[in-house]
């Protein structure tokens, strides 16, 4: 594989389109993988200025998406404008394609070796018509595929596997009238691998056949219903289908966990048959919130994107395999079942389906389980709500929890502005002398200040700065809606025409109340800070105290 890829890259460097064509035709190369210099074939061809090869690669399924690093690189390194415009013409995602991560997840499984236990070997029909030539030696399979992908995406395989013997390892032999190309085509389709080319290039009847044989209505539809649509739309439809398939699988087989009593020992036989047939190679255990039960989710290591779970599985397998135990590895995860369910659904379908009141918990879980890619998405969920509940904590968590969670999980660049803005717009409530909020607000500012301590020579408290900024914004927005003359006339006595006076009064009144409100808030805020800095001043000595005095001076200056 490596050498074939290297040969392809060499041919691209030389601009030898014939060998490029040969390489691509003869081997199952991933046209979107990269070499040791992080060059993808497309980048290289674009950089070297081989227009024909760029064209050919694009036609063969090389992707050039502006929202990916590789895609950007190909466009920017293009040797001339001709190639650049060609690349841009093929760009699917000038508008951001939300499904891209899902596609790369599924298609990366195509060549991924992770989670071999969940693979199924597929045997090609033999030319002499002998169906069961296959012995059980693994390397003699023509193809490997993930059972759950097969089940999810093909009715044919679903029936075969569900009606089949559940003893492991599964192997499948196929009807004799299939050619390697058509099987490869079907598998590629299932894995969303080079889907576009497949849909565009394969001829209608063979696609139709495949769709019938393997029970993939989507593949057939892809051809017939999408006539006349452009590539991007076709692709979007294909991807959506795949996502729907996997969602279906998730709902059908994976979503419902096995519930056992807390002190009961898990064993594979307890799983339901459908799940068992999917050959889960990892069982994720979580405890019920009340503590009485343990929920066991069957899953596949191939899709797990948590470094914690993967490492734990690896760690434990070492000992398991020493004992010759081949059953799925058990990993206990310390999250609520609903969070686990959300995570798994996301692993399989790239869909996050969670109510805002659980979002913060999900964020913390993502941090604990080391799922970096999930964090920004959850942050987005958190930061797009605008409810006074956040203030009261009625959601299950308050704005102060959000800020702390941001600091804790390293997502503060995303969450801090949100918190500051929220606090700025609810500053009145926070400054209320009698409320609990004021105390919490003070505590938060103090915590933010201690964060400064760990950094070098920063003068101000981040949170305070941010709040000031958003406070300004808040009132500036209000002023901006007023007519310009208001500000001009503020100093002079407005003794213009009496008829106008009536109309002018209202905005100026607004301005006055606005200014008053702003001043009041600022003074209240300053007062709070003053008290707080005074407290700090007494408690700490030396450098920190000095720093705080500086802050204070500036703030009041």
């Amino acid at each position, binding site marked *: 594989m490596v050498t074939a890829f290297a040969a392809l890259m060499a041919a691209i460097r030389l601009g030898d389109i014939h060998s490029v064509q040969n390489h691509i035709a003869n081997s199952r190369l991933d046209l979107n993988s990269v070499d040791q210099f992080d060059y993808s074939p497309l980048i290289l061809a674009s950089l070297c200025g081989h227009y024909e090869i760029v064209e050919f690669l694009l036609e063969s399924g090389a992707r050039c998406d502006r929202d990916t690093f590789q895609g950007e690189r190909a466009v920017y390194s293009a040797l001339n404008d001709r190639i650049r415009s060609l690349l841009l013409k093929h760009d699917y995602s000038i508008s951001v394609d939300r499904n891209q991560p899902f596609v790369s997840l599924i298609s990366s499984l195509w060549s991924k070796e992770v989670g071999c236990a969940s693979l199924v070997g597929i045997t090609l029909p033999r030319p002499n018509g002998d169906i069961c030539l296959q012995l059980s030696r693994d390397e003699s399979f023509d193809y490997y595929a993930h059972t759950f992908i097969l089940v999810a995406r093909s009715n044919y395989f679903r029936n075969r596997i569900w009606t089949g013997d559940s003893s492991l390892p599964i192997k499948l032999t196929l009807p004799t009238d299939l050619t390697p190309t058509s099987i490869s085509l079907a598998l590629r389709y299932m894995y969303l691998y080079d889907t576009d080319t497949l849909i565009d290039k394969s001829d209608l009847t063979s696609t139709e056949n495949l769709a019938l044989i393997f029970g993939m209505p989507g593949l057939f539809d892809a051809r017939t219903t999408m006539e006349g649509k452009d590539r991007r739309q076709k692709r979007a439809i294909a991807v959506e289908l795949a996502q729907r398939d996997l969602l279906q699988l998730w709902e059908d087989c994976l979503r419902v966990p096995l519930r056992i009593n807390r002190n009961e020992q898990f064993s594979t036989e307890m799983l339901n048959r459908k799940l068992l047939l999917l050959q889960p190679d990892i069982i994720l255990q979580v405890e019920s919130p009340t503590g009485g039960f343990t929920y066991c989710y069957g899953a596949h290591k191939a899709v797990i994107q948590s470094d914690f779970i993967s490492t734990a599985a690896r760690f434990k397998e070492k000992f398991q395999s020493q004992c010759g135990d081949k059953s799925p590895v058990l990993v*206990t995860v*310390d999250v609520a079942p609903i969070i686990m369910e959300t995570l798994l659904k996301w692993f399989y379908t790239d869909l996050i389906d969670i109510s805002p009141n659980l979002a913060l918990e999900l964020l913390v879980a993502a941090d604990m389980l080391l799922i970096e890619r999930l964090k920004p998405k959850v942050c987005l969920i958190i930061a797009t709500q605008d409810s006074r509940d956040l203030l009261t904590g009625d959601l299950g968590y308050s704005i102060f929890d959000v800020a*702390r969670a941001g600091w804790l999980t390293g997502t503060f660049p995303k969450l801090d502005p949100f918190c500051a803005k929220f606090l700025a717009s609810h500053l009145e409530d926070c400054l209320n002398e009698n409320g609990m909020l004021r105390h919490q607000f003070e505590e938060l500012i103090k915590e933010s200040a201690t964060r400064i301590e760990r950094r070098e020579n920063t003068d101000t408290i981040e949170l305070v700065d941010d709040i000031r900024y958003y406070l300004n914004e808040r009132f500036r927005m209000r002023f901006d809606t007023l007519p310009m003359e208001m500000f001009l006339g503020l100093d002079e006595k407005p003794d213009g025409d009496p008829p106008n006076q009536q109309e002018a009064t209202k905005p100026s009144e607004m301005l006055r109340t606005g200014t008053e409100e702003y001043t009041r808030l600022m003074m209240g805020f300053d007062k709070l800070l003053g008290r707080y800095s005074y407290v700090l001043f007494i408690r700490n000595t030396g450098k920190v105290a000095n720093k705080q005095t500086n802050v204070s001076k500036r703030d009041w200056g």
Partner: protein
Amino acid sequence: MASKPGGAGRIKIRPPRRGLANEYMRFEDAWETLSEALQQIYARDASNLSFEELYRTAYKMVLKKHGDALYNSVNNLVKERLRRVTSEQLKPTRPTFAPTSSALERRESGNRFLASVKQAWEDHRLCLGMITDILMYLDRVFCNDNKKPSIQVVGMSLFRDNVLRNKDYDIGADLNKVLLEQIQMERDGDVIDRARIRSCVYMLEGLYETLDEKEDQKVYLTKFEGAFLAASDDFYTKEARKLLEVCDAATYIERANDRLNEEWERTQSTISTLTEPKIRAIVEQRLITENIREVMQLEASGLNFMLDNDRYDQLELLYDLARRVDSHVNEIRRMLKDRIVHLGKEINRGVYSFRKTNAGGEGSEGATAEDKSVNAETMLALKWVEDVLALKDKIDKIWNRSFSSDQGVQQTISKAFADFINDNKRSPEYISLFVDENIKKGLKGKTEAEVDSVLDKAIVLFRYIQDKDIFERYYKKHLSKRLILGRSVSNDVERAMISKFKVEVGYSFTSKMEGMFKDMNVSQDLTAEYKKHLANLHSEEPTIDLDIKVLTSTFWPWSSMSGETTHTCIYPSELEKVRASFQQFYLRRHNGRQLTWQPQMGTADVRATFKARKYEINVATYALVILLQFNNPEVDSLTYNDIKTLTSIPESELVRHLQSLAVAPRTRVLVKQPMSRDVKPTDKFSFNAAFTSKQLKFKIGTIKGVGNKVETDRERKETEDKIDESRAHLIEASIVRTMKARKTLKHSDLMLQITDQLSKRFMPDPGMIKKRIESLIEREYLERDANDPNTYVYLVSILQNVFFDKIRQRLTVFQGLIDFALMFGSCA
């Protein structure tokens, strides 16, 4: 069994689970759990540990801002552990390096030590891996935020500092020593445990000097490799000396090759591949670069021996070795050249010594002796060429089989051959003779391919010749004789040869030779047409079958064929009639041409009636003229002077022909009185009617044969003069051409240009060029620059035209004036 979590029991408001902020945690408690677990890992008892629990503990510690403490504690724990390992496991196995211990003991103790180091390293790696897994959150979050090196990296550096560079026991130094000792043992032919050494080397490769783990800061590179290279350098310096003392060249190169392979294998199987180029450089330096010359010069077995005895394998090995250190293999090339030149000069010496011995006796023996020596030298010339070709074959075979057809080496070979071939001044003549010989006789019965290969060989030698113009001259001379006398086997072969020359040096070299062929063809047609013409005349005259060859004077090396004298004679009336008739015929067809008859080149078939019977005799044209004088029944006998006046054949020719007619024992058709070898003016000749011969058809040759032989010294002198003259023209032309293009040129530059231009044909002598320049200055084609006497200025306009006019004139004169014809007659 299965149920949906949350479901009915889900409360709407949930506190964050296991609160982030509200759960208190003492560092000591948590650390106790963790450290116990880590101890268990070290005790290889980790299977019961709950990974999730430990991970969570570490996770919480980081959240509770105990990250720093945890980080330091873990590192301390690892450090402690490593120290204990060093003192408890490694120290007891440290080898003693006692000088008294036997090799076996040393090996055993070294092995034990390596094994324990390997064990310690593998334990460390395994445990560190597990610790890193457990502390993954610490690594990812804490180390990342605080820019601290990861647990893995610190763990490696701890191993380096606490095991290899332990304060109390210098394990690192021991390790180096043991490794080097083991390698030394292997070099001495012992068997060692490579895998074990390899794993220790892996260890050194996995450790870095600094925490940022730069590739060039591997402990292997900083601490081990240097020592290894120094030890190797030392070893191979001695090894080379030892080998030189005890081995012959063949063994030396074999051993050197073995050593190179051995070291390469060592880098692949025992130590790091990173060292491969460095150790190779050392071995190459010590075993090859420093000694290869000495080895090649070894008297009894060196390069000369290998060359002489066709030791292809050894030469190949030698070449491969030399190539490693010098891609041009200059050392081999120099010696190879010396050897070839030496062998070539041996061949030359055979010729020289022959000539020397003959030069002594020549004066006294006279003409016949000269003839004899000429015959012998012709044989010698052929032998010389064959010897050279044999040498060439031999060297080529070596070049092909042992030197992998190296282009550079080929150049050297060519240069060596050119050197000694040009060292022999007669080589152009010899080579031309060789071709002549082969075309005349050698090629009969050979296939086309064989013919081709012989000719190719000749071409190879031709390529080496520097003075191609001399060769051209000889070749033309030899060719003309072959053509006129009809000696060449086939025209195809001749033409093939000429086209080969053409490929080598271009059209100008062969144009005249091609002209010669053209003449021959034209002559054939002409003869046929003349015969037709005669038939049309229906003449009653006695028929003389005339075969005529009309040759263009410029194509043929006339002077060397005809000698210095002009040839005329008074033809007997029979011949004169034919001659006049042809001349008339020819001049009618080609008006304005001039035919000059060259009777000395012709032959005639004569049917002569003697008392016994009729014989058919082939004689030269001159001899025919003489014989015809006796054809008159009134003539009984003629004196020498009579004949001379009647025929006016030049005296030297006349003497020669009379000798062959009257003195040569088997062909005495004339009787001479008195009977003696020499011909005197007073001698009387008469027809020998009583002549008998065993053959009905025979030939009366002239004393001086017509075959191509080496030239006598006198002839050579002439040839040289001619060549000098033609060269002078070429040089002048070249000078004028150059100066015309460049206008002014420095003396040295001009010399360079001229030499460069002419070197394709011959190597001009600087003295000669200078003379030509002087001559041109005199004739005002050039002048010296007034300011710089070393610079020449070309004088333009009129003078230049004059020069070319002259040349053109001369050319026209030559072309228009003279066409020669040769006459062959046959009379009854």
